[in-house]
């Protein structure tokens, strides 16, 4: 009989499906999200597998071209809207943001549950579209193809994304109000963990950017269904206007995907160096700076779209600006290691992997921001490699690192460290083998979204597919051992890592209302002197 089952906590306080589906507990909602996004990760991953197998040969011989076009579209839709964007905020943010600031829950628990249902509903629409025949417009839905020419399930998919967008908006709203108004006594802004700052900045983007995507989808909908011709060139409309509206959200969206990941990395680097993050204030402000600047650069997706040269100059300039706060973070994390006490637990390995891969991915963004170079590499595999480096090599690594880090807190169990280290290595190697050749392919001139390609591109494509199979193994391993650990993993104490942060002051798993008594915060963030030796007095 395990010791934890005797104590009441959020997992065993109530039982039955209804207690989960009607829960108001942010921790349970985080787990509901975990289930949903994992499902969509597998769906998106299945599409990716088919894509990479098709690309083993230069001819389009595995699937028809229409099917292939649906595969890459649905891969991106599933991954971006139903996995990446919710992942860290809705799983780890939901679970830990209230605890980290000493609150009993988010400001609006029922809206939090509604957010999850909206994601599920949106996902249902998208899944329906995928099963009923698929959509082939690319996740970018450029007009006039999407409004007038495509025969796929455009509307169903667009509706799914629309509904999921509101999930994102409401989560952002919830987080902002919570951080502003529900911090425990003594938890000033500059004592908050950097993970909270990161999610706060992400929430700013979510509330300001997502509505623009929503209205863009509305315009797409009315043009396709009611033939109102806002983007129709035959009626004097501008198809490129759609691109402006689309990217006005979709560029900040990539910062929605990376900022929470950076927040996780701050926590991991600090904990496993046993030192406060170097330049806390700079890292905190850089998150907000990225959120703000991220809204000013969307035109770098339109350099060859017939956008004016002047606009191109402005957007190129600002795109270099937005790189600087990210660079500041990387330098600060590295400096945190200096004279630290570094341990090589799995979460730290993921953090190291993140920093390396994000550095490469972020720096290749600078290639794309250079106007003269972008002309050649835009719409090629260079871009595909760039964004997979930051989103997969970046965000997914951080997500996995965070899951390993907080797994004992969430479940009360430790995962098996040996297997976890091995899978981190497999992921890192598989990832690089998959995506590094794509930089070369892109500069060679292989365009994106190509079902068949000239023979001379085959060797690099084969390398990429080989890498993808290794990567897949790396992703499957945690699935297996995390589930295994629920029954057989070592029981975890309140603070197995010796981390700071209020979540480590409460039991593993936490009680329903997070704390037995509301904590009163008297120490700065990342104060490791309070973890060793003296026990902190809570309340």
């Amino acid at each position, binding site marked *: 009989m395990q010791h934890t089952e005797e104590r*009441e906590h959020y997992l065993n*306080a109530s039982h039955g499906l209804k207690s989960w589906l009607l829960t108001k507990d942010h921790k349970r909602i985080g787990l509901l999200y975990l289930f949903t996004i994992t499902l969509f990760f597998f769906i998106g991953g299945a599409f990716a597998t088919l894509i990479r197998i098709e690309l083993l040969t230069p001819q389009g011989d595995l699937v028809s071209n229409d099917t292939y076009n649906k595969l890459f579209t649905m891969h991106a839709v599933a991954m971006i809207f139903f996995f990446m964007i919710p992942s860290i905020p809705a799983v780890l943010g939901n679970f830990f943001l209230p605890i980290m600031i000493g*609150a*009993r*829950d*988010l*400001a*609006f*628990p029922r809206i939090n549950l509604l957010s999850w249902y909206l994601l599920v509903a949106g996902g249902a629409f998208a899944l329906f579209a995928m099963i009923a025949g698929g959509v082939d417009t690319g996740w970018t839905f450029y007009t006039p193809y999407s409004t007038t020419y495509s025969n796929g399930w455009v509307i169903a998919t667009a509706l799914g994304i629309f509904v999921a967008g509101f999930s994102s*908006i409401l989560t952002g*709203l*919830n987080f*902002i*109000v*919570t951080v*502003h*108004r*529900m911090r425990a006594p003594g938890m000033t802004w500059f004592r908050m963990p950097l993970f909270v700052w990161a999610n706060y900045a992400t929430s700013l983007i979510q*509330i*300001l*950017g*997502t*509505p*623009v995507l*929503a*209205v*863009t989808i*509305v*315009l797409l909908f*009315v*043009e396709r269904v*009611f*033939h*109102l*011709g*806002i983007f*129709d060139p*035959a*009626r*004097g*409309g*501008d198809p490129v*206007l759609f691109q402006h*509206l689309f990217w*006005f959200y979709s560029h900040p969206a990539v910062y929605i995907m990376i900022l929470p990941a950076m927040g996780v990395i701050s926590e991991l680097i600090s904990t496993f160096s046993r030192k406060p993050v170097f330049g806390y204030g700079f890292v905190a402000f850089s998150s907000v700076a990225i959120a703000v600047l991220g809204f000013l650069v969307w035109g770098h997706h339109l350099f060859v779209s017939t956008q004016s040269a002047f606009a191109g100059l402005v957007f190129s300039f600002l795109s270099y600006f937005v790189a600087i706060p990210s660079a500041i973070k990387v330098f600060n994390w590295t400096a945190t290691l200096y004279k630290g006490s570094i341990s090589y637990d799995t979460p730290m390995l993921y953090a190291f992997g993140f920093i390396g891969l994000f550095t490469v991915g972020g720096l290749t963004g600078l290639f794309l921001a250079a106007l003269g170079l972008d002309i050649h590499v835009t719409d090629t595999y260079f871009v595909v490699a760039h964004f997979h480096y930051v989103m997969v090599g970046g965000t997914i690594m951080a997500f996995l690192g965070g899951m390993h880090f907080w797994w004992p807190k969430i479940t009360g169990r430790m995962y098996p460290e040996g297997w976890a280290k091995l899978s981190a290595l497999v992921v890192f190697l598989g990832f690089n083998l998959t995506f590094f050749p794509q930089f070369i392919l892109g500069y060679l001139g292989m365009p994106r979204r190509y079902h068949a390609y000239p023979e001379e591109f085959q060797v690099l494509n084969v390398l990429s597919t080989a890498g993808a199979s290794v990567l897949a193994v790396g992703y499957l391993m945690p699935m297996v051992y995390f589930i295994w650990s629920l029954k057989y993993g070592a029981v975890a104490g309140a603070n197995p890592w010796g981390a700071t942060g209020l979540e480590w002051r409460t039991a593993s798993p936490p*009680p*329903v*209302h997070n704390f*037995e008594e*509301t904590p009163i915060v008297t120490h700065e963030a990342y104060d490791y002197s309070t973890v060793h030796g003296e026990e902190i007095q809570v309340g």
Partner: protein
Amino acid sequence: MADHGHTETLDLRVQFDTAEQQKDCSTLGMWIFLITEIMFFGGMFACYSVYRQWYPEIFAICSTSLNAPLGAANTCILLFSSFTMVMAVRAGQLGRSRAIAGWLIATLIFGTAFLGVKAVEWNEKFVEHHIPGATFHFAELSAGQQGPAQIFFSLYFAMTGLHALHMVVGAGMLIWLLMEARKMTYSAKYYTPVDVGGLYWHFVDVIWIFLFPLLYLIDRHMKG
């Protein structure tokens, strides 16, 4: 189960420490939601700005064909409805449930009147063949100008349609508040839903204040 010394009440839910904190959060939450709505409508206003700059004369001519007296009447109706809404909130502050209900009913009546006038206008557009699509024909413009005229009317229907949708949702919200008011849910201590509902209603009103001149009054002062 830890209940932290208080059982949950409407004005003090379990996640909050004080009723004031709860009210603060609700209000801040509604303001943030309204900011998202500004961004939502903002996308359409951006499209409008681009196309008005591209086709200024066509936009002016199409705008003149809209029924400005009806639009102006609707503007007044909405302004009155915002007034009655404010009075409902005031009644809430004073804890007068029957007055809340009364003023909410007045607001609903104005809101419904607005939608009715809108329906009349849209019908007018249908009769005049100003609905974009295969049947569109704007008599005062030449064949080459029909396209941009369709863009004007596409924006007209999209923007006023989106606004009307928000009014319908607002009406639903008013009905719900009305039912709660009649159940004596609200008091001087707790009338937050009426308060934040009022914020939403005012916002929908303000959107119309922008829509009306932008759609109905382009260059109208220059026409005979």
